[in-house]
C-alpha cells in the first residue's frame, strides 16, 4: 500500500494544491480536514494545553509556505508534520526561557486533557484514551509512534523529520511497542469513562 493514499488526497492532490495556493477555501478546507485532526492529536499527545493554538499556527505556517512547497501528498504530510514538530520545539524552548510560566503551564495539561474528554463525551473517548496511552511512553518513543501512526510515514521519513538515523528510529519504535504491550497487559485500556483517561494520564 502506498502510504500517501491512506489519507485520501491521492490523485486529487496536484489540483488541490494549485487551488489552495490561490486561496480557494474549498481546497484549503479539504487539506485541513484531511490533516488537521492528526496534527492536533500529534500535538495534543505531547503538549495538551497548547495543542489547539499550536495547530492553528501550523496552518498559518502552511499558508505562508504553500507557494514554495514542491512535492506530492506524501511530501505534503511530511512537511506539515515537520512544521508541527518545529512549532512544538519552539514552544518548549520558549517555556524553558520562562521557567516560572513553564512550571505553571506544566500543571495544566491534565486538567486540559480531562476537560476535553468530558466535553467530547463518549464519541472521542477511545481515541483520547489511545493517545493518552501513547503519551505515557518516553518522549522520543512516543514521538516516533505518533509520527508513524498519525502522519502515516515510513521509518525513513520519521528519521528525516526527527533528525535521527533510520536504525535509531527502528529501535525506538520497537521498544515503544514492547513497552506499550507490557503496560497494557498489566493495565488494560478501559473505555468505561473519563476516569480511565485520568488514571493513565495522572499516573504518568
Amino acid at each position, binding site marked *: *500500500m502506498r*502510504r500517501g493514499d491512506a489519507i485520501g488526497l491521492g490523485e486529487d492532490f496536484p489540483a488541490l494544491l494549485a487551488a*489552495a495556493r*490561490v*486561496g*480557494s*477555501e*474549498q481546497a*484549503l*478546507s479539504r487539506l*485541513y*480536514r484531511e490533516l*488537521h*485532526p*492528526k496534527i*492536533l*492529536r500529534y500535538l495534543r499527545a505531547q503538549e495538551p494545553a497548547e495543542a*489547539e*493554538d499550536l495547530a*492553528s*499556527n501550523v*496552518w*498559518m*505556517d*502552511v*499558508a*505562508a*509556505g*504553500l507557494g514554495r*512547497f514542491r512535492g506530492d501528498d506524501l511530501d505534503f504530510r511530511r*512537511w506539515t508534520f*515537520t*512544521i508541527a514538530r*518545529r512549532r512544538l520545539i519552539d514552544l518548549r524552548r520558549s517555556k524553558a526561557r520562562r521557567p516560572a510560566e513553564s512550571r505553571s503551564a506544566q500543571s495544566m495539561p491534565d486538567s486540559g486533557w480531562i476537560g*476535553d474528554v468530558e466535553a*467530547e463525551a463518549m464519541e*472521542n473517548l*477511545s*481515541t483520547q484514551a*489511545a493517545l493518552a*496511552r*501513547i503519551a505515557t511512553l518516553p518522549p522520543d518513543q512516543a514521538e516516533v*509512534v*505518533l509520527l508513524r*501512526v*498519525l502522519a*502515516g510515514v515510513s*521509518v525513513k521519513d520519521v528519521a528525516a523529520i526527527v533528525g535521527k538515523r533510520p536504525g535509531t528510529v*527502528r529501535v525506538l*519504535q*520497537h521498544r515503544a*511497542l*514492547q513497552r*506499550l*504491550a*507490557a503496560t*497494557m*497487559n498489566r493495565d*488494560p*485500556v478501559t473505555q468505561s469513562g473519563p476516569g480511565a483517561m485520568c488514571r493513565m494520564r495522572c499516573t504518568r
Partner: protein
Amino acid sequence: MHEMTLDPFTADRLLSGVVPPEDAPPGYEGVARVLQAAAAGPTEAELARETVTVLAMSVALGTRVARSRHGSHRSGRSWRGKASAIALVAVLALGTGLALAGTLPASFQKVASNVLSDVGISVPNGQADSHSNDASTQAPPEAAWFGLCTAWESGQGGENGKKNDATAFQRLTKAAGKASVQDFCDGVIAQHGADHPSSRGAAGQSSTAPGLSTANVKSGGHSGAGPGNSHRP
C-alpha cells in the same frame, strides 16, 4: 520482566495500522487496538476551528497572490483580500458571540492580527486579551453582523465572483433566511447606523469594518512580514 517477542517486520506492520487486533501477535492485541484508535476518523470537536482557520489561510494566500500580481504596491491589493480580511474579523467576532468555533485563544487572535495587518487592517493582537477576558473586550454579535454585511456590500458590482462561496458569507445567507442578503444587510447597516451615529455612512465605500471598533485602515507602507515568516517551513 518477560519481553514478548516482536520481529521488525511485524512491528512495522503494526505501526502501519494494517494489523487488526485479532491478527496481532500474542500479547500485542491491545497495542493494535490502541494504534487503531489513535488513527481513527476525525471528530467534530477536532474540526471546530475549521471555518476561522481556513478563512485566515485564504486571506493570507489571497493577499500574497494579489501582491505577486501587482508587484510590491500595497495599493494593488485586491478587493477580495480586503473583504476576506474583514470577513475574518467578523468570523472571529461571531466565534466569540455565537460560539461558532468555540473559544478563540489569544494566540489565534494574534495570528489573525498578523494576517489582517498584512492587508492593511489593524486589530489587537490578543496579547491583552490573554490577560483580560472580560465581556467588554468581546465584540457583540450585532457588530460582527455589521462587519460581515459591510464586507458583503463592498463587493456589490465587483468582478470578483464566487464571493458568496466564502463560508462567512454563507452564514449571511443562512441568517437572512427567506429574505435576500441585500435586504438583511440593509437592515443590519441601517440599525447599526441608528445605534452608532458616529460611524454612519462608510458602509460599502470603505475597506474598514466600522462595526468592529478595533478595525482601522493603516495609512500604507510596505510590510513584508506575513504570518509564519519568522518560522519558515
